[in-house]
């Protein structure tokens, strides 16, 4: 039970590109993935978003799927990222028998991107068109498509807590390994852009028509993004058995419900404070031990004030370097937690701080400014990653550097 849980592989796709190398390159050169929509067909094409720079057809080709394969973009993005993590952890050639392997996925829209195109046929009892895609609509179907592509899982599950889905999935993976229910887990989230989400967030009037500016006094909302990211987590015993070098250790987590409003965060940041505090306590760390906070930082008026207040509640006068990378990737909703965790772990691994793009003016409610520039030669001993979702589903994870 007291075994540590390690991270041994990372995989990511987002508006920044395909894979960890392209992601680091974009962060280094301050090249944002937010821009004009190219693939999603919508009347709101004036709203900037961060699309993964590949069409479905291009991804299908990369993954050698035929044109007839019933698969949605959420799964296609997921496969690209999960495959990278699987290979990076060396699981393809180094997977001892008898290990229990899980694929733990987080997603909320699932196959909606097809359902919204085919819906009239779906609900028409007389129509046979697109019927196979009905079975691809639900979130579980999307997870299984990814699991089946990789093809060696004993356990598959799907978490859906809106924008904190991926972090809650990482927490589940950690707990299942701790409790001995899994030996290795590929965990994270995936979500593609949909008219459903774009229109939904638009009705809430929280989409910025310009590139988003998290933690900035002039912020005016978020940009939606899409992407997928997965971490390979494994028990200490399996790390030793496979003789692999871990990237980081998961130190602790927190999960608390704001229980305030379905789509708004409490002004005092209660749920957020609790989630971060629990993660610190479980990790047996002091606030001063945290060298970087990867904020949820959506760029909405409400989130950034609530989260910023929570950070001040907990860290007082000594706030560690903090940034939101949503100016790069957009808000990748269900994937955000793992997209940002992978970016943070790349920062820990390659010793940099990811900047908070588009920041110019300090928020009047907050005592701190986010990281403004890509900063190199930085040692991150412990990092804290926040993800907050609709419904007040607030979660935080702390990962620790294995070299210190």
């Amino acid at each position, binding site marked *: 039970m007291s075994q540590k849980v390690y991270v041994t592989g990372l995989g990511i796709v987002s508006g920044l590109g395909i894979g960890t190398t392209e992601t680091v390159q974009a962060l280094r050169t301050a090249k944002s993935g937010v821009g004009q929509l190219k693939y999603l067909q919508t009347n709101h094409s004036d709203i900037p978003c961060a699309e993964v720079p590949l069409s479905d057809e291009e991804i299908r080709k990369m993954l050698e799927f035929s044109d007839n394969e019933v698969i949605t973009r959420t799964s296609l993005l997921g496969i690209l990222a999960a495959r990278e993590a699987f290979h990076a952890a060396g699981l393809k050639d180094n997977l001892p028998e008898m290990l229990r392997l899980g694929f733990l996925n987080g997603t909320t829209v699932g196959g909606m991107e097809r359902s919204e195109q085919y819906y009239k046929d779906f609900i028409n009892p007389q129509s046979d068109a697109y019927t196979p895609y009905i079975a691809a609509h639900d979130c579980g179907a999307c997870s299984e498509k990814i699991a089946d592509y990789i093809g060696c899982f004993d356990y598959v599950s799907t978490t859906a807590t809106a924008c904190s889905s991926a972090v809650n999935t990482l927490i589940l993976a950690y707990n299942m390994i701790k409790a001995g229910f899994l030996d290795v887990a590929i965990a994270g989230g995936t979500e593609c852009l949909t008219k459903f989400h774009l229109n939904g967030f638009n009705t*809430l009037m929280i989409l910025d028509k310009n590139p988003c500016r998290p933690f900035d006094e002039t912020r005016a909302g978020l940009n939606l993004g899409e992407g997928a990211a997965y971490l390979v987590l494994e028990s200490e015993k399996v790390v030793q058995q496979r003789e692999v070098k871990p990237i980081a250790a998961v130190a602790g987590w927190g999960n608390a419900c704001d229980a305030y409003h379905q789509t708004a965060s409490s002004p005092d940041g209660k749920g957020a404070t609790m989630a971060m505090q629990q993660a610190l306590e479980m990790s047996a760390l002091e606030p001063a031990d945290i060298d970087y906070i990867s904020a949820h930082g959506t760029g909405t008026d409400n989130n950034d004030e609530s989260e910023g207040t929570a950070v001040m509640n907990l860290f007082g006068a000594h706030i560690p370097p903090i940034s939101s990378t949503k100016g790069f990737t957009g808000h990748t909703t269900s994937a955000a937690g793992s997209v940002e965790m992978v970016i943070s772990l790349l920062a820990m691994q390659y010793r940099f701080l990811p900047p908070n793009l588009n920041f110019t003016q300090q928020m009047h409610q907050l005592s701190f400014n986010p990281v403004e520039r890509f900063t190199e030669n930085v040692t991150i001993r412990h990092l804290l990653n926040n993800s907050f979702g609709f419904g007040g589903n607030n979660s935080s994870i702390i990962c620790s550097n294995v070299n210190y």
Partner: protein
Amino acid sequence: MSIYIRAIGNISIQDTLGKSSLEQAIAYAEPHVRCIEPDFKSYLNPMMMRRMSRIIKRAVVSSMVCLQEGGIEQPEAIISGTGLGCIEDTEKFLSAIIDNNEKFLQPTYFIQSTHNTISSQIAIFLKCHSYNNTYTHRGISFETALMDAFVLFKTCRIHTALVGGHDEMTPLYFVQLQKLHFWKEQVHNSLTICTGSDSQTAGALAGEGSICFLMSDEENDRNYAEIKDMQLFYNIKGSEALLQQIEQFLNRNNLNSSDIDVFLCGNSGDCLTDPLYHEIHRKQFAHSTYASYKNLCGEFFTAPAFGLWSAASILKNGKIPDIQRLNNVQTTKIRHLLLFNHYKNKNYSLILLSSCGY
């Protein structure tokens, strides 16, 4: 550490809310049956009700009834499983997008559409800041939620948890799943769906439910049953491998198949998916009482939550309702019950329960 079922709230197509056993089973002769709903007005004030969709009202009320029975106001975790989430509001928002060509949309349906609305509305209702999570994975949506609670108990993070399975079947989703051959064209008698003439045809009867459990690690005379262990499997190749997994699961609990008094399975009367249950029963549990529960609740993604209610009821009352029996094996004392469900022979769940008196 032992994990118990302390209290239950069950809204289903039977008269189950606030009841620890079924007094009179209701038979249906149609392929799509909606829940018997309580008078929500006696639980919720009109202001609250106006803002709540059907599935939220059901989930909040089944949670309330459960927590009242358990005498607990603030569980240390709220975890829901739901195959389709708040599908009614999802459909409304989706239809509005399509019908109005992405114009003139109201946020309400979008706000209420996400799967985690259920857990979060329960939390808002209880003003409960505890651990909060939601799972959605086809036929094992409830069991993955239960697994989350189970590992939280096992890693000593919590002492109580409210775990629920919630699904509604709207007419529009019924039509979609009908095209995928989920449902029977005709049902003559739901109660005998696993044994009578209905069991000769493919598909199931569409049901619904909102079923909550208060789990606790505290011994209490009023506990229903102990959840000894659980396990989920994915994509097992062949029934022999499945039999082996079940045996290993029992062995790790120092039991073998002969110790299982009741084998309670997810038979739905579907002639394509029930044979797997029959085979496992025949090869491994022929000596056990073989029983079903979906002839009472119908098929839905979180129907195994009704199965857990039935298992808890059987263990608490020490007897198996005749309407659920699939064989004639009689047991004088029920100690161990194995709840087994599979979804399309791809997802499998095992939950091992023991009577508290044992």
